[in-house]
């Protein structure tokens, strides 16, 4: 951390060893602590009973927030979270809502302990309000946290936190995200912890200062009360638990829950191969007007029972695509928790002990003040999360017992489009601001044994939801011409990625004038929703305004436009980061992201492709050109013609890769003995440490230093070769040349790696230390 602004670095929080943190807390704040012996003394029975109660208490926090909140983000989309923490902020239990927030809640408590203990003090009945992304308790200024200390007999026993995304907390643009911000001073104001509740009483002056900054003061005020109520209810129940079992016992259970989660994750890590896996991804455009790609790097080293995430190589902070350190941690937990710890209770404090972070300063993912960070969670943090998901999946794929946990990347980020204006329906005049939430229905990545879930939601918010169209039309003066699953959007693969969808809005007939749009999204050219083991990426995100459509506001319409081709008008492609307007005669089209495929699409059983065509998940054209499926006139699979079509596609790969004349190696059954599988296609011969293709047995090259990659056939062709769901003209968005790159077995030409990347993107370089 090296802010150019003297004094700014005081407002940052990093993990601090417990002993050091204890030294920094003044004696005027007595803590409830137990020693190691007490922690071990709790019997199995009491542990179970108290653990179940704490679990139930956290679930109720979520229900209280949802029940009371006024915010679409909370009630319809579940972008919030909450936790119960010990006296030093280690997280004992968290919710299954926005997972990334888990990476920041403890940091906010640590900062509060270090900076608020003496003045104004931390006392019984207090709560602190915070939305400073450098301090934590949230990942950008829209995330507002309420931190509540719990006291028992005058000692600080623990904390509860409740955090929710607020639609608007001020700043120059509706929705608080500004794609043209030069720095954080062009965004919503970050606020370090303020005592919003004192002695149990909501402080009117603080609350007013808080809501005054927002374009939606009522909504923000309601959510503030919801968070206070959730904390208060949780505290009451925890104190009831303490009355019954004693504070020391409850604390011992809390400690053991974290220890237990830690040891279960470490046990799992020990069963996985050692090595280093790395991945590189991009943020497209750093702000309005930019035309560059900005690289994110992660290299994950797994040794025995610990993980190290090394983010060095990530581009320096720039534009609006930055996040501070809590966002970097969020990037890890976003995907690490669902993918490695889905079956372990989320006593997150214990899980967080299992990894270390290596990072440069002043980068996209570890930005210093005053970088613009409003896009942090859905820009660089989510982008890093995709890379973390990718390296975890590759590690899991190499361990047969864990292949069922392998998942290609889900929708690479959100498709943010904030619509604002004045609702004049029925003679009213009420300002409104809202992101379009249909985009929550992203596609999930394919797994080894399953297709990805179609319009399944978000990996990083396991219980994500999209609102009903009727609810959106009731709340805002818009009409949805359609909202549907998009054919071909799911990444092609042996297992298909889950489909995404699209929505098309026009203004309600009673409206007039323009609405403002703020748009942001990356994955329009260099797809973030990558496929694994040769699976293709999911669709390119595409956001359009169609100007001057044939049926403006459906006035006098006798028919409903069924797709972009029916709309008429002229298309304006919205940039990755920018602003626009939606006029009365225009239509807004958002096509958000699907999940990546898994395995080579030419290996997908023909019957599965046929069923996809019947259920409109894959178009007949894509079935033919991407999957090589040929149907007979009666609609049944033509097996012979399909084989031939697939051979033609393999030959084309060979030709593109410069392999001419050679016959295709026949695809057979995998070799059973003496090899260890690395993924769907590759295995390593244990004796020779040579990588072979499991489909045809062709030897490819040495595993060590990823030397075999040089032995793979490589083709780099136009992006649309990956399928009709990939955007055809990268130059609309960026200056870089973008290609569809496939690496294939030189024998049978099965794809082992299929990416849409800029020319010069590094080749895979993984170190399978267990066998190399």
């Amino acid at each position, binding site marked *: 951390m090296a802010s150019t602004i003297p004094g700014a670095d005081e407002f940052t929080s990093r993990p601090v060893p417990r002993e050091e943190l204890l030294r920094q807390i003044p004696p005027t704040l007595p803590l409830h602590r137990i020693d190691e012996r007490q922690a071990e003394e709790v019997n199995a029975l009491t542990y179970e009973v108290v653990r179940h109660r704490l679990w139930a208490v956290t679930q109720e926090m979520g229900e*209280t927030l949802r029940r009371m909140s006024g915010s679409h983000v909370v009630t319809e989309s579940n972008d919030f979270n909450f936790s119960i923490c010990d006296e030093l902020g280690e997280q004992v239990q968290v919710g299954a809502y926005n997972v990334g927030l888990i990476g920041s809640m403890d940091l906010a408590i640590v900062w509060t302990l270090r900076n608020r203990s003496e003045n104004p003090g931390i006392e019984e009945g207090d709560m602190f309000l915070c939305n400073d992304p450098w301090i934590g308790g949230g990942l950008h200024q829209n995330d507002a946290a309420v931190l509540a200390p719990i006291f028992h007999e005058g000692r600080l026993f623990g904390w509860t936190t409740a955090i929710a995304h607020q639609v608007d907390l001020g700043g120059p643009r509706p929705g608080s995200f500004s794609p043209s911000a030069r720095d954080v001073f062009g965004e919503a104001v970050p606020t370090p912890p303020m005592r919003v509740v004192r002695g149990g009483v909501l402080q009117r002056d603080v609350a007013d200062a808080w809501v005054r900054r927002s374009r939606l003061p009522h909504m923000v005020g309601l959510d503030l009360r919801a968070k*206070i109520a959730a904390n208060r209810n949780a505290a009451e129940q925890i104190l009831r638990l303490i009355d019954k079992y004693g504070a020391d016992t409850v604390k011992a259970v809390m400690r053991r829950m974290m220890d237990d989660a830690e040891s279960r994750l470490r046990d799992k890590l020990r069963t996985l191969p050692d090595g280093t896996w790395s991945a590189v991804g991009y943020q497209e455009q750093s702000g309005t007007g930019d035309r560059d790609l900005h690289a994110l790097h992660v290299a994950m080293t797994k040794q025995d029972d610990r993980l190290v995430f090394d983010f060095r190589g990530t581009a320096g902070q720039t534009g609006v695509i930055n996040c501070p350190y809590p966002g970097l941690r969020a990037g890890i937990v976003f995907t690490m928790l669902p993918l490695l710890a*889905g079956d372990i209770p989320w006593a997150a404090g214990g899980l967080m002990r299992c990894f270390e972070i290596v990072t440069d300063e002043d980068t996209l993912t570890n930005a210093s003040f005053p970088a613009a960070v409003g896009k942090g969670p859905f820009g660089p943090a989510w982008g890093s999360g995709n890379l973390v998901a990718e390296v975890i999946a590759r590690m899991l794929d190499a361990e047969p017992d864990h292949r069922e946990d392998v998942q290609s990347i889900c929708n690479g980020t959100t498709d943010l489009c904030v619509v604002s204006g004045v609702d004049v329906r029925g003679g009213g005049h009420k300002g409104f601001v809202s992101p379009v939430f249909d985009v929550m229905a992203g596609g999930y990545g394919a797994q080894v044994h399953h297709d990805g879930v179609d319009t399944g939601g978000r990996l990083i918010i396991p219980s994500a939801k999209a609102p009903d169209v009727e609810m959106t039309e009731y709340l805002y003066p818009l009409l949805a011409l359609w909202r549907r699953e998009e054919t071909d959007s799911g990444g092609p693969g042996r297992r298909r990625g889950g489909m995404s969808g699209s929505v098309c809005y026009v203004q309600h007939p009673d409206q007039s004038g323009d609405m403002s749009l703020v748009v942001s999204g990356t994955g329009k050219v260099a797809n973030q929703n990558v496929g694994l083991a040769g699976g293709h990426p999911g669709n390119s995100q595409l956001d359009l305004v169609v100007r001057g459509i044939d049926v403006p506001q459906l006035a006098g319409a006798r028919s409903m436009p069924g797709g972009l081709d029916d709309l008429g008008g002229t298309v304006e492609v919205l940039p990755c980061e920018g602003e626009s307007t939606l006029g009365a005669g225009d239509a807004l089209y958002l096509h958000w992201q699907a999940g990546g495929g898994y395995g080579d699409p030419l290996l997908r059983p023909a019957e599965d492709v046929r069923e996809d065509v019947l259920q409109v998940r894959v178009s007949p054209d894509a079935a033919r050109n991407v999957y090589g499926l040929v149907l007979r006139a009666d609609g049944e699979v033509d097996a012979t013609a399909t084989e031939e079509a697939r051979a033609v596609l393999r030959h084309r790969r060979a030709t593109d890769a410069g392999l001419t004349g050679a016959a295709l190696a026949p695809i057979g059954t995998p070799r059973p003995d003496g090899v260890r599988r690395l993924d769907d296609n590759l295995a390593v011969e244990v004796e020779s440490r040579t990588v072979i293709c499991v489909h045809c047995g062709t030897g490819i090259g040495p595993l060590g230093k990823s030397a075999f990659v040089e032995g793979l056939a490589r083709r780099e062709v136009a992006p649309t070769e990956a399928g009709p769901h990939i955007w055809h003209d990268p130059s609309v968005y960026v200056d870089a040349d973008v290609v569809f790159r496939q690496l294939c077995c030189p024998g049978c030409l099965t794809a082992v790696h299929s990416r849409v990347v800029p020319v010069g993107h590094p080749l895979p370089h993984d170190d399978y230390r267990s066998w190399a």
Partner: protein
Amino acid sequence: MSYALGIDVGGTFTDAVASDGAGRIVSAKTPTTPPHREVGVMRAIEEIAAELGIGVGDLLAETDFIAHGTTASINALVQGTVAEVGLIATKGHRDSIYIMNAEGRTLGRAAHEIQDTLRQRKPAPLIPKERALEVTERVDHAGKVLVPLDEEEVRARARTLVDQGVEAIAVCLLWSFKNPAHERRVRELIHEIAPDMYVTLSSDVSPRIREFSRTSTTLMNAQIGPRLRMYLTPLQKRLEENGLKGPLLVMQSEGGTITADRAPEHAITTVGSVLSGGVIGGMRMAEQLGHRNVITTDVGGTTFLAGLIVDGEPVRAPGSVVNQYPINAATIQVHTIGSGGGALASVDAGGNLRLGPQSAEAVHGPACYGNGGTRPTNTDADLVLGILSPRGLLGGRKPLRTDLAREALRTHVAEPLGLTVEEAAIALHEVQNAQAGDLLRRAVVQAGHDPRDFVVYAFGGAGPAHCAGYCQDLGVREVVVPLGPVASAFSAYGLAASDVVLSAELSDPSAFPVPPDVLASHYTRLENDLRRALDRQQVTFKEVTMEREVDLRYSMQVNELAVGVPETGFTERTGDEIIERFEERYERINGPGAGYSEAGVQAITYRARAKASLDFPVVLPDVARADGPDPAEAFLEERPVCLDSRTGFVPTPVYDYARLRAGHEITGPAIVDVPTTVVVVPAGVTGRVDRLGNLVLSYQ
């Protein structure tokens, strides 16, 4: 003489209860006979007639009404054995039922499952996409037609579906609850092509905002409606041929009945009929015992169900979830957790004792049954603890194997945790009680109530062994274990004792308060609808009462709270009075200071409920009285039992329920053996037999 009959067709047994309105109640239990369930129903009626010593014809000729509940529809939905149906949706919005608001992965799932994203998938689609078709039309949020219905297109779509051989068609258009004209016209056009087609309109089945759950409800209604009709029509015919005097009524999830000829049209409202029967039974017993607030718990082999009765009325919910699909049909709220008597115990990799949610029932039953089950259950723990006798249940007809129970506990719990077998058993027993206690507390508190104002009724084979334990932390006043003549057919009793309840609602989202004339017009319309529906029931009602409700929320909130609306005339003040009620209830649920009137209030749905009581008292009879409180005459034996980890095994008296009389008092620790269950009376608890033969446990 005249009779009321309650018939509960469960998955395994068909239960029947007849009451003569003069204090005599008899019950019968016969096997359910799928797929021709009416056979089992007729057999149950024969048994009832035999029990009463009269012929079936005589019984039916004097039967004022039969109230019927069946699990067939819900089982069909759960197992997917339903009619092939088609859907007609608004152009551009067919995929609502596939997108499922993205929440299809997690709807109805437990928190620990939701967290495990790699294993959460959407359920199989309700219908394949080739049977989900779109028609051109558009209505807006205010009910105004923006694009007229393309009738030619509707005809073409209908023909496509008919050609595909569908048995029913569901129609769900956007905003149809605001303006049902297009849906109604679609039905007319379908009937022009296929006059007998079963057609369900979303504006009839579920006139409520939110198209996903409305479509889901309408589709499921179409899936079960035709088959319910195929079952009820011959049953009704058979009953009428046998001389049934009164109507055949079908219980709804909401706790009232509708006539059998109308039930198929509203099939989705009957899916919870049997569960509701149990809560209604509890409500009737509560009336007799003078309990206003009751928590009913029903612990069977696989499930633990809990319902609430507040101020004499069951707590209802506006909907439920089946197979991860939402159902918009008002229902008596039944909370479920998977820890019945057969819930499996295990120790996970982190050394945590877990109970459920998997159950042994489906496979081999508890280890002690000796049917090949090797994993320990609550029942095994209860046997090791001496709560159950090795002689087993049903008077020794089902002996239990202590050695197998001990082995299962040793292998799966005791050794992994470093406990003795007995310690493992008591740990299981107490974890079960703690889990159940948590569920009950949440159910009561979230409904805005204090458990200390309640008594608990504990039914089900596995409930009475645990109820004293799981209720202790709740702070309830008393626990009643119903043990009278209908205890084993309680749901059928509830059916016989039910009122006719109908409800109607309309969605009209707007700022609140609305002018009094708007309120008046909404409720007049709803109540007129209800009166017409009551007239169709062919029954004489003793009394009809109307209740009014409106779902309110703070502006921009999404979750609503149902608030009572005054019955008297509406004035300028009425709206404010309703808001006061809303805010009071809101703060009771969410804590003092949680209200935020600055944000303004909105109304979403208006609802009226008609409760029509049948002129027929279904009263539980008194049992014989004891001379004094000493239960010595019912003493069976003394055996070592462990009910508390702190005291361990202590010699504990066991009493025979058959010899207990009203007025007997049992001081814990003690066990009461009943043919179908075992009641545990722990130390510090007194059990008293009340005048209906129930065992009432109270804490000292």
